[in-house]
């Protein structure tokens, strides 16, 4: 484990004057500050990291660079598709973080220079850092599904980043005629929110059941199994009968291409023309992480899983969906858990007090109806090889055979979980 020595500390403080002398339009350290920390990306990972860094090291300068002025949460965005939630209810601002004297800058981070230790932005300003935390989320592997690119997403939305894409998919569902088929193309592993496509199928079916009862949802999958599968399949059957169908690759579910103009999805053997096509493409780390060469061949960023420091560059930390976090699935809850550990690791570096043994948590609730939720939870630790692994004997999913009141209780708790997860990040 790295500890800062007295000499390193002097060196770190010495940076202040150097930074001021270069003469670029840069933001430099405020008086008495122990460290300059730049967080890029204000989602679940980045917002939580900024908040906990400020809390652990109040005398540090924490800058949060986020391109959007509001954050639309993917978590609970499937409930917007069903009409159970509104866009307003998944919108969060950065006022809470600004009140905590975090310097929130709305700009696109265009580059990170690991040698100069500087983040450049679209507004021309560059920010020096002692430590940089990157939580850019995912980017899409356009073109792996032939014909599916950024332009195609305007006709066949992915809605895998909440915002205009969510609104577009909702509009398409609203204008669909009764009897129409909605096809959801589920992505290959690993991707953001393993349960997401399957919760989405239920939420769309929930909308159809009450507004277009002859409609159908077909999940076209390139995977042979998926998370909480029996719980989802049982829930589909119970509430939606045969309205939802899941097709594995064996049943011809693997979509290899799209024809946007014709509105068709193409598999090895067939072509389909659904009323609404929701194509969720394969994913990798956010663009900036790729550009700065923080990812490896897998498309994700290798990190020291104790600290989340990049294995490629010192003093840059990658958290959230973009990071390879061992056995942890990519989720908002997980991103927040990474953020707190990363903040602790950086605080340890700055103060010289040893970082405590990390402890990780991940949980995910999925709503099949507003009164029927299922959950998965896991506690993680670091093993001897430095990999994040589940603690034996802990965690798991909701029981398969459970009375309705159990599902209802979990649906109630899911609403509390959303409030708490978002206020912990943005409040």
């Amino acid at each position, binding site marked *: 484990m790295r500890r800062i020595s007295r000499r390193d500390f002097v060196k770190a403080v010495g940076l202040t004057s150097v930074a001021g002398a270069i003469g670029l339009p840069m933001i430099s350290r405020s008086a008495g500050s122990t460290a300059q920390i730049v967080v890029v990306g204000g989602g679940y990972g980045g917002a939580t990291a900024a908040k906990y860094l400020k809390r652990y090291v109040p005398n540090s300068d924490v800058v949060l660079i986020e391109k959007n002025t509001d954050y639309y949460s993917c978590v609970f965005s499937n409930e917007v598709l069903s009409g159970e939630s509104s866009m307003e209810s998944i919108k969060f601002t950065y006022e809470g973080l600004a009140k905590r004297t975090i310097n929130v800058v709305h700009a696109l981070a265009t580059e990170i220079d690991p040698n100069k230790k500087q983040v450049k932005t679209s507004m021309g300003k560059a920010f020096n850092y002692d430590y940089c935390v990157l939580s850019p989320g995912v980017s899409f592997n356009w073109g792996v599904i032939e014909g599916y690119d950024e332009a195609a997403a305007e006709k066949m939305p992915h809605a895998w980043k909440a915002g205009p894409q969510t609104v577009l998919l909702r509009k398409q569902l609203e204008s669909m005629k009764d009897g129409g088929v909605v096809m959801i193309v589920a992505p290959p592993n690993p991707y953001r929110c393993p349960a997401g496509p399957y919760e989405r199928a239920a939420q769309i079916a929930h909308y159809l059941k009450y507004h277009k009862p002859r409609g159908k949802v077909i999940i076209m999958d390139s995977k042979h199994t998926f998370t909480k599968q029996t719980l989802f399949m049982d829930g589909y059957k119970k509430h939606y009968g045969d309205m939802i169908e899941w097709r594995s690759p064996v049943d011809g579910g693997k979509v290899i291409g799209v024809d946007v103009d014709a509105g068709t999805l193409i598999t090895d053997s067939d072509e389909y023309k659904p009323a609404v096509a929701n194509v969720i493409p394969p994913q990798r780390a956010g663009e900036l992480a790729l550009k700065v060469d923080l990812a490896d061949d897998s498309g994700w960023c290798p990190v020291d899983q104790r600290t989340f420091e990049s294995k490629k560059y010192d003093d840059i930390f990658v958290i959230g969906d973009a990071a390879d976090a061992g056995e942890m699935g990519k989720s908002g809850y997980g991103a927040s858990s990474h953020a707190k550990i990363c903040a602790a690791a950086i605080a340890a570096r700055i103060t010289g007090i040893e970082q405590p043994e990390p402890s990780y948590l991940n949980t995910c609730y999925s709503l099949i109806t507003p009164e029927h939720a299922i959950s998965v939870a896991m506690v*993680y630790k670091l093993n001897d090889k430095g990999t994040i692994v589940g603690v034996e004997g802990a*965690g798991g999913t909701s029981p398969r055979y459970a009375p309705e009141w159990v599902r209802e209780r979990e649906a109630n708790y899911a609403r509390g*979980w959303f409030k708490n997860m978002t206020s912990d990040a943005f*409040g």
Partner: protein
Amino acid sequence: MKKKLFAVVFCFFFCGMAWAASNEAQSLSVPCAGCHGSEGASKGEIPVIGGLSKVYLEATMKNYKNEVRYSTVMTRIAQGYSDQQIAAIGEYFSNQPWIPGSQEINASMAKRGEKLHMEKGCAGCHGAVGISSIATVPRLAGQYARYLFYQMADYQDPDKPISAAARPMRGMLAGLSDDDLEALAHFYASQK
């Protein structure tokens, strides 16, 4: 040794109390915030845990772990921690302030609940307003109503596991209707 001393002095000087020797407990406890709210001050539905007593927190986590208490999710989580870790977690949350939940209260129901609370002798352990001086008895005042309702329904249910400490309540709650439980829950929730 010298190095450590330097670090501690350094930390007090530069970062106040925020980052100090209690880090181990903090590391184990902050991930709970995603469900229970920052510092255990839940903003909705899931129970407030910040400010409960250390004795109760520890006992409850162990009860979940050993399946002596029913839960929808907590058993799966508590099983991830050693008893020693649970003690540290208990210490952490007991040192947080109790922030009552934010919820809508039905005043007439709360009134009826108060009457039941007195009649049924709940005050004997839970105090006049749901705040007890007994460390093993949790605070009810300001807790989320729906959560409290679920707990009372569980105590009534002969098929559910129950801890020795909770056992006296099974008899006391027997025969109370769901409406009664809801009234009690609203009474406790209405107290601050």
